[in-house]
């Protein structure tokens, strides 16, 4: 990390190549290696399929938490296949990394709603009724088809 070889935007494959110079326990890509029952149960990474983000960290010092974005295939800790994705952000706190990786964005806004509210109101529907609510929702759904 301190050598500056880890860069935002690098692929997970490149990241693991750079990290291979570390000892097993200090590398997020190798630290899960182990053969005891317990070690097979405890893995370091977390993959968020709904946000396509993945957190990787080492098992020793837990100093850095690496968040990858656009991950369709997460790191496989058994086969050590990297999967995909690019490094998006580095955290020093696990909770901050989890909040960042798990956050979903909402893309429907007031402007869209108001536009269809007006259209439904112009049709003679009264505001604050289920009729106008159904009308607005229907229009929103129709628009996406």
């Amino acid at each position, binding site marked *: 990390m301190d050598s500056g070889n880890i860069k935002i935007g690098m692929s997970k494959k490149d990241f693991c190549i750079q990290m291979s110079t570390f000892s097993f326990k200090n590398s997020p890509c190798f630290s899960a290696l182990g053969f005891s029952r317990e070690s097979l149960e405890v893995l370091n*990474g977390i993959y968020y399929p*709904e946000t396509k983000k993945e957190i990787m960290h080492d098992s020793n010092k837990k100093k850095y938490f690496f968040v990858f974005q656009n991950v369709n295939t997460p790191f496989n800790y058994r086969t050590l296949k990297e999967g995909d994705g690019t490094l998006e952000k580095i955290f020093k706190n696990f909770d901050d990394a989890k909040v960042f990786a798990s956050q979903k964005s909402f893309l429907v806004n007031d402007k869209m709603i108001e536009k269809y509210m007006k259209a439904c109101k112009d049709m003679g529907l009264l505001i604050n009724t289920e009729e106008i609510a159904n009308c607005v929702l229907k229009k929103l759904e129709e628009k996406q088809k």
Partner: protein
Amino acid sequence: MKKLKIILILFLGLNLYTNAYSKPFESKIIFESEFGGIYAFKNPWFHAPKGSYINSFKEINNLSTSNCNKYSKKSYFFVQYLDTDIRSMFTIQKNGDLLEGKNPGFIPDDTVDVKLMWNHYRFYCARDMVELFANHSSRATIFPFKFFNIASFNIPYVVGDISANFAIFENNKFFIKNRQEEETLQVQLNLKINNANSISTVRNQEHIVDGNIGYANYKNIISEAKRLCEKIGYKDGTENYVSCIFKLMNISDSYEQVKIQDNIFSSNVKNKANIKVESRYLSSNGNAITNNEEGLFKRLWKGVSWVMYEHGEEILNLILDLKFGTNYSGYNTSAQVSNNRGGLVCVQQRLGDVIHQNCKGGGVHIYCMYVRITDMTIRKTCRDKTI
């Protein structure tokens, strides 16, 4: 002597073939908390009188019920339907009866891998279905590994992470419930809120942990969807209100997915060929779609995501061909090339520095055009052409 023989036969008969003298095995509380408990009974070395397994399980079930009652909760355990010739110690029938050595039937969530000769059972305490499913998704943190773990060689005769069915003990009777039937929209919504920041482990077919799956944090988007649904006119707590929340989240999601696919594709192209991809999307009438009020074209986004997912590698090769004049794609000709992948038929044709692509499937027709703008830039324009 004859009398003694009769008594002995009667005693053995009762002992072996009825429940009358079948004492439960030695049982123990292994672990307990407000979220659930692990209980175990010791298997006999040789013969188990008929009814012993059932009575032992009932005793364990009582222990869990007492624990959950302390927190004003009900006791649950997950079950799996076993429909094989392999004999199980006992099964729970659909009508709630416990039967020894009788398949098919439901087996409870247990393991024999923690301690030799001991069967460990995992129970959950919950006030309602939301808490039950939330606890189930947090089982790795609720139940210590050393008290409940399953070795790979035991599958598929264990419940493990399966959660399709569960059992509840009420009025002295077991009731088998189906998770899908119990998961109403309201339960699903509450689960999305409760599951924020929780993590569950995923196992492969050998039951070995493959990875940790984190749940997305829906709190913000649910509260935003709630606000908009109320603004539209739905009243809090009604079925239509909950349904509205889901619909708004789906609308939002469809656009987000294509952005993710686009980002993956663009970063692949950037990594492999150092080319920047500019993406443009057009509605069926040719208007540009942007990430604002016109961003709700689910069919186009789904279609484009599908094309990128199924044909991403081909498109990447096409782009490399456009830049380097190579023929990785095999399309270095003006002839049309057709590919069918994942139910999506795509026909591509390269004409000079332009590639035309038409993809059809599932009632969707997406047309994409790839144009080389500079040596470093490709413009991708996709349009919904579904009639």
